């Protein structure tokens, strides 16, 4: 993908928006000012944001569990995310579902699931729809190294390859599933090598380098759009925080490991890259950051001030059944 300066700034904006939103929400949680416990993708933004950045209007993204970056990049507002996080009546699900797995199909964001890996067969099905309707749209599905052990992953790989569906599978291999290091999860630390077994192309990129991620995903997206079928892209990355904000930062991870990776902060790397190109200066980036900070602040303010769910206004049964005809009881 040839990115214009505007594109590059927009990409930086998405990265910073994601980082800043998650940091603010985490701080609030740690300071006990917010009940919302984030499971952040801090450290992994180049993957989440970079990959989503390659999509166009009408495409779909299927987030795994720490893909706020994908949601924001696809146009979900910070306000909406915080409304979801705070389980407000204005949230996407009206208090029914978690912000981590929130979806908005009008923006091409497919509702997620707590069940690790289980979003992949669903993404597969959306990709099936796209081929069925002869659309040139694509689906981008995220999953972690942990998810690669599930049967759901296997299904999505094999069916999408066999049926030649427009699906791009992006693995953020952050070296851990909760506390479990790769050595307990798989024999080799590489996941992209699984692709060959399904007759699929497998690609491995540095997940801290957003340019590399964009390049690889963009290529796969184009291929899928052109009817070339699915691609598996593994991004080597790392989460800088604990599994969730209520977990310790390390969860038993070696301190050196963490510090080595922290030195590869995707935002710092991209920022440096932009500045080195001389087309964007420090001031411009500061301006973006200031703007983002304002947007986040406003989103937070709105969402925190928004009315809480009150028991007397809860609508418990609508949409449980399509017609809902008298099924409140003994359904």
């Amino acid at each position, binding site marked *: 993908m040839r990115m214009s300066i505007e594109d590059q700034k927009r990409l930086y904006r998405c990265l910073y928006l994601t980082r800043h939103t998650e940091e603010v929400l985490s701080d609030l949680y740690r300071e006990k000012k917010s009940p919302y416990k984030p499971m952040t993708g801090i450290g992994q933004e180049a993957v989440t944001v970079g990959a989503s950045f390659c999509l166009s209007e009408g495409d*779909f993204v299927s987030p795994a569990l720490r893909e706020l970056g994908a949601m924001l990049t696809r146009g979900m507002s910070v306000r909406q995310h915080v409304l979801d996080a705070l389980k407000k009546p204005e949230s*996407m*699900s*009206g208090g*029914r*579902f978690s912000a981590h797995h929130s*979806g*908005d*199909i*009008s923006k091409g964001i*497919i*509702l997620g*699931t*707590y*069940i690790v890996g*289980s979003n*992949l*067969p*669903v*993404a*597969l*099905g*959306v*990709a*099936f*729809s*796209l081929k*069925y*309707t002869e659309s040139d749209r694509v689906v981008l599905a995220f999953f972690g190294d942990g998810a690669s052990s599930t*049967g*759901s992953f*296997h*299904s*999505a790989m*094999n*069916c999408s390859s*066999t*049926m030649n569906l427009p699906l791009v599978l992006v693995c953020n291999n952050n070296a851990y599933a909760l506390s479990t290091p790769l050595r307990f999860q798989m024999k080799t630390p590489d996941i992209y090598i699984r692709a060959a077994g399904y007759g699929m192309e497998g690609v491995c990129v540095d997940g801290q380098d957003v340019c590399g991620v964009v390049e690889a995903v963009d290529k796969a997206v184009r291929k899928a759009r052109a009817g070339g079928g699915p691609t598996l892209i593994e991004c080597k990355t790392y989460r800088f925080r604990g599994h969730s904000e209520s977990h310790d930062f390390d969860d038993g991870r070696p301190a050196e490991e963490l510090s080595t990776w922290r030195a590869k902060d995707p935002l710092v790397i991209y920022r440096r890259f932009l500045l080195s190109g001389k087309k964007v200066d420090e001031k411009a980036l500061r301006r973006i950051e200031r703007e983002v900070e304002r947007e986040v602040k406003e989103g937070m303010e709105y969402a925190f001030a928004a009315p809480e769910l009150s028991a007397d206004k809860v609508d418990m049964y*609508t*949409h*449980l*059944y*399509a*017609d809902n*005809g008298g*099924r409140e009881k*003994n*359904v």
Partner: protein
Amino acid sequence: MKTTISGALRLALRDEMTRDETVFLIGEDIGYYGGIFNVTKGLIRQFGERRVVDSPLDETGILGIGVGAAISGLRPVVEIMYVDFITTCMDQVINNAAKMPWLSQGQLKMPLTIRANFGTGKGDGPQQSQCVEAWFMNVPGLTVVEPSTPKDAYGLLLGSIRYDGAVLFLEHKLLYALQGEMEPDGRALPLGKGAVRQEGKDATLVSCGLMLHKAMRAAQELLEEGISLEVIDVRTVKPLDLELILESVEKTGRLVTVEENPYTGGWGLTVTDAVNRELFGKLKEAPLRIASLDVPVPVSNVMEEMVVPNVERIKREAGRLVRHGKGRQ
């Protein structure tokens, strides 16, 4: 016209696929082979590989495609060859198909029909003869349909495909060949409505699927002995048409449920519970449940016959309930 249940199902699929371009079929061996019980026979010739999809042997993939396609504008009819195999994709059924519309406040629709054959009678043993409705009774969001006649098979399948929520559509393998009158008139039957198959006054028999036919036979034979049974076909096991049942039991004062799944935890419990609660003090006898024995389905036909309720047993227990009270002794 006269046709079999499998013929009626095939007509329903054909008619709905003709009418609605978004309807497609996916499953194992449903295309060129025509499905393990021939239900989809010939449809691939008519509609092509795009709309009749022979899938890999992977129920999770099949269900995933169903769920994903349903939320993105299509109306998938997925086939799980034998319902027992649904155990390999339960997550998609329970956590995604049943919940996504509710979780998204209706932003996502789930016009997904999961067809599967089920049941005993073929000597297929414990992992290919199960009767599983009861596993899903406690899963809000799902609808479970079970036709017992060609006419119902046609109308309920249309109703299921047109319904915007997830339906588990269960076809008893011994009933595929059952003949009956029906008109392929494109009319759907509403889900959740039972039917009185025979009127009577001494007791109400509530059943569905293959058991419904056994119950009918038992009722006919008991009639000759002077016992008049009202027989209700629930048609939809979830949600049950409790209104219809209560009305009938209010009249007869006695209830017998006849189900094919194991006794403990069977769907008949939902019926006896409602009847006991709503008609407390008005019942002539304690409701009686007739169900399979609490064991897996044995492969031996001798044993299978002992496990599953048969006409004799229904007759004996229902007859005893009316004559002496206390059906089971």
